[in-house]
């Protein structure tokens, strides 16, 4: 009961924010929501299944590039978005097929290397992909369900709709049988095998879902903000979802949103001191692993709010 109220309450607050906040904050909030979708995808792999990937920029950027390139070549926004989801899922499955033969530190390095190779490939074919500079999406094509996504209002609405769908699906997923078997992989793989679960296929399915979310986030990011580029495939975009999830709380449904929001606020607050978010990200990462490895919601859950989903 309480978890349901909490989720509905959060979504209601976000809808209200759409009406109450001034326009220039809509853009920032829409960005946070899209990044939160990315982080939710990351959370499915890392938070729930225990797969610490350092290469999720690959799936985010693959989704973004697929959508962007398709639109550049004349495809409508709707089908291009679907293509983005497919790209995120497919890259996650392909890399997962290989990376899941490893575990722990090797898994981290392998995923990092795959993402690196993908980013370099985008640069190598810069003539086609636009390279690090990227390219803007034609404004006329940025229409979805009749909404003009160059406008702040519709843009926020679409970002919120995507986030809401992602959040509710994630909540349903982690309460499902399959969600329980994902968590089982994180907690004790050998035990799970001896209960009849196939670790490889379970983890591969979790990665595929995680890639689906990441691809959706990347595609939406390009579509909503009108710009795609290989710079979204750098290792920093693999670290960001990790950071959001660690901050908000790994393995909590609302941790990704909390982390993404808080980080945006932190970087904004620090922007008077420095114009680069690097230091803020660095310090937050260190403080988190040292003092709060379970993140905010994870710590709250441990400290008595056991019902936190």
């Amino acid at each position, binding site marked *: 009961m309480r978890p349901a109220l909490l989720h509905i309450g959060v979504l209601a607050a976000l809808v209200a924010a759409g009406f109450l906040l001034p326009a220039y904050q809509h853009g920032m909030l829409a960005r946070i929501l899209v990044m939160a979708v990315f982080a939710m995808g990351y959370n499915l792999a890392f938070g729930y299944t225990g797969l610490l990937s350092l290469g999720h920029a690959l799936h985010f950027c693959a989704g973004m590039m697929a959508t962007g390139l398709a639109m550049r070549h004349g495809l409508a926004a709707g089908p291009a978005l679907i293509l983005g989801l497919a790209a995120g899922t497919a890259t996650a499955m392909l890399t997962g097929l290989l990376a899941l033969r490893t575990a722990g530190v090797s898994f981290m390095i392998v995923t990092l290397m795959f993402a*690196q190779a993908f980013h*370099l490939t985008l640069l190598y074919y810069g003539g086609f992909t636009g390279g690090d500079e990227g390219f803007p999406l034609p404004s006329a094509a940025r229409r979805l369900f009749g909404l003009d996504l160059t406008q702040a209002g519709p843009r926020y609405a679409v970002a919120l709709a995507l986030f809401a769908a992602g959040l509710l699906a994630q909540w349903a997923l982690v309460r499902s049988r399959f969600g329980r078997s994902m968590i089982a992989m994180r907690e004790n793989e050998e035990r799970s095998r001896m209960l009849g679960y196939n670790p490889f296929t379970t983890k591969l399915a979790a990665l595929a879902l995680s890639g689906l979310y990441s691809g959706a986030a990347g595609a939406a990011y390009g579509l909503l903000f009108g710009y795609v580029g290989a710079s979204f495939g750098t290792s920093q975009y693999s670290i960001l979802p990790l950071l959001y999830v660690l901050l908000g709380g790994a393995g909590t449904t609302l941790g990704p949103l909390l982390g993404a929001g808080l980080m945006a606020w932190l970087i904004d607050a620090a922007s008077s001191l420095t114009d680069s978010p*690097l230091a803020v990200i*660095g310090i937050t990462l260190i403080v988190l692993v040292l003092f709060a490895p379970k993140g905010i919601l994870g710590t709250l859950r441990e400290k008595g709010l056991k019902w936190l989903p």
Partner: protein
Amino acid sequence: MGTGPLLLLASLEGLVMAAVLALAAVGLSLTFGVMRVVNVAHGEFYMLGAVLAWAVAQFVPSAPMGFVAALIFAPLAVGALAWLTDTALLKRLNYNPESTIVATIGLSYLLQQGALSFFGPDARAVQAPFELRLQFPWFGYSGYKLFVIAAALAVLAAVWWILSRSRAGLVMRATQVDRNTARAFGINVDRVYAGTFALGAGLAALAAVLIVPISQAHYLMGHDPLLLSFIVVIIGGLGSLRGTLIAALIIGLSDGILSMLYPPTLAKILATLVVALVLVFRPQGLFGAKA
């Protein structure tokens, strides 16, 4: 120039590259071998070495003196920072492999930002300690580059001697095999870890000081050496010193030669993919013994 001389030139460039790479990679391999941690900030320690070399050169106007001062000061300063990192950060994380990676990612961001703030976004040149041009029949070649090869070889030999012959090396190897047993034998494991981490970082800094008169100092210069060190260490077999040296030589040489023939981006793509596939299919490395 004919193919023969071109190849000679490429091999010389490759050897310089291999020498510097070997120093940096041995540092990374050492920390992984003894402490079982992957230090993502290794590239930033390298970058700091270069930046400090430039800073020292500003204080000491004469080129040879400034270089010698940097050669001593930069590795010591970076080593001290690494020592601090170990005691203040890694030790508190109990050297948990995954937390350590996340923490050193954070550290690398912090160091990059620090270098950017204090040093600016521009690339800075440092003068070589001596100007000497060796004249081959086909081309002239920098005497300094040959010095870099010789210096790196000397340092590597020293490291090898320390590890295999000295008491410090014995203590490090004992800790590597089993830290609890080492502790039971009265070895101060904390000091060994901090010392190893400092030595690894110092080697990276030293490599950077050597390279800076050739390729300038810049706050983002840590990326490539980190990637290459990873490649070397993984292909050589994680933690295997012998494998690391062989891999550094092969990769440094082939990188030097390949990058003259192929676009560097393509070479990097292939290299990263090779690393990933080696880890997947041959985790003990190509030259490491089976675990």
